[in-house]
């Protein structure tokens, strides 16, 4: 993980020298848990970094979520061209903590790789009459399938798609700018895929709704809420929808920081998984 982050920072600096950064501050978003440009748990229709037409943009991120019983680490890189196409890679690593001991599991962590692609279909976040709409695909590969298989997951690899619309309304929140995102995701990933794909209870993709709303206090600070519907495919434990409240700080087009308080509900038999989310992103 550390190596990825280092490599990513190096890439960022190398590319940064050539980047035009033609988009406005914060319009590249942060990096969501799965590596795509977005908030924390919900993607945005924007493309990572600050490239406009004919320009490159890119980012690297590291994120940690601590919920008491679990710890999730995620890190990755993303590259975008022409404010049109985004490619991303992320690795997630979930430390199972006491669950491994309590259930006598063969591994005390699970991890997965996520390869993402996002295409802006039409519209513009700020200027056009239509909101910005993007289509995304995420290909996920479980790296430690023993535990997911044990709890009923049907497969270790899967692909899911999502359609996302984003809009920034200038001055719409009592004079402050308001950012809205809605996503429809077609997925059967258990806990993002960390517990595999499909389950003993249900093994089909299904449509899941996600949304976030943020107010920009000024061009550098954003506060908001996110909600992400989740499937419930495994009978050994319930899977809760996720939500959080966050503060995002964009001091420049090169750095952003997101701090959130997340309510993740029940994860693999442990309920009330509330905790802190912290994400650091480098971008150009």
């Amino acid at each position, binding site marked *: 993980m550390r190596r990825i982050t280092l490599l990513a920072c190096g890439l960022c600096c190398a590319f940064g020298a050539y980047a035009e950064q*033609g988009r406005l501050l914060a319009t590249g978003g942060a990096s969501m848990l799965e590596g795509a440009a977005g908030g924390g748990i919900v993607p945005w229709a924007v493309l990572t970094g600050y490239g406009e037409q004919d320009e490159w943009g890119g980012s690297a991120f590291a994120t940690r979520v601590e919920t008491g019983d679990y710890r999730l680490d995620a890190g990755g890189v993303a590259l975008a061209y022409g404010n049109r196409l985004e490619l991303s890679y992320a690795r997630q690593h979930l430390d199972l903590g006491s669950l491994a001991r309590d259930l006598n599991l063969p591994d005390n962590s699970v991890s997965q790789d996520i390869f993402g692609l996002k295409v802006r279909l039409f519209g513009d976040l700020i200027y056009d009459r239509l909101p910005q709409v993007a289509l995304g695909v995420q290909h996920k590969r479980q790296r430690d399938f023993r535990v997911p298989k044990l709890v009923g997951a049907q497969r270790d690899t899967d692909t899911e798609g999502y359609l996302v619309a984003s809009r920034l309304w200038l001055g719409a929140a009592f004079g402050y700018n308001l950012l809205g995102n809605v996503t429809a995701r077609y997925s059967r990933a258990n806990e993002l895929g960390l517990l595999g794909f499909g389950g003993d209870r249900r093994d089909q993709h299904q449509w899941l709704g996600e949304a976030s709303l943020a107010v920009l206090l000024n*061009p550098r600070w954003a506060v908001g809420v996110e909600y992400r519907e989740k499937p419930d495919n495994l009978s050994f434990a319930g899977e809760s929808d996720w939500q959080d409240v966050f503060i995002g700080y964009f001091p420049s087009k090169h750095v952003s920081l997101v701090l959130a308080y997340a309510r993740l509900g029940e994860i693999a038999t442990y309920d009330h998984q509330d905790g802190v989310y912290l994400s650091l992103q480098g971008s150009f």
Partner: protein
Amino acid sequence: MRAWLFSGLLVLLVGCATPAPDSLYQQLGGQTGITRIVEDMLLRAAADARIKQHFVEVDIVRVRDKLVEQLCELSGGPCTYSGDSMEESHTGLHISRSDFNALVELLQAAMDQQGVSVRAQNQLLAHLAPMRGEIIER
């Protein structure tokens, strides 16, 4: 009764002559404030490596005057824009999407410099944003 009518008329008159104290025009600092904002923005543009090439060989005094007029009118001030349409004045300039955003950033910087609140800045930008289509890529 007549006193009421009179004071009512007076309020109306005053209300029309001087925009409400928190109108956008006032928040931008009126004529003086808008002029300072426009001049500061144009100075920044002339020095900005991303877009300065657009402003060489331009009658900058005219651009300043017309822009002040336009922002004054847009913000509810006592002016009428007398310049060319946005299409006319930007055709042949080949202004890119990035150029447009660059000027937005310089306008924001100029308004920051002038102490204009974030909310007033957003309000002005909301008036300008829909014009992008008439300005870029022509």
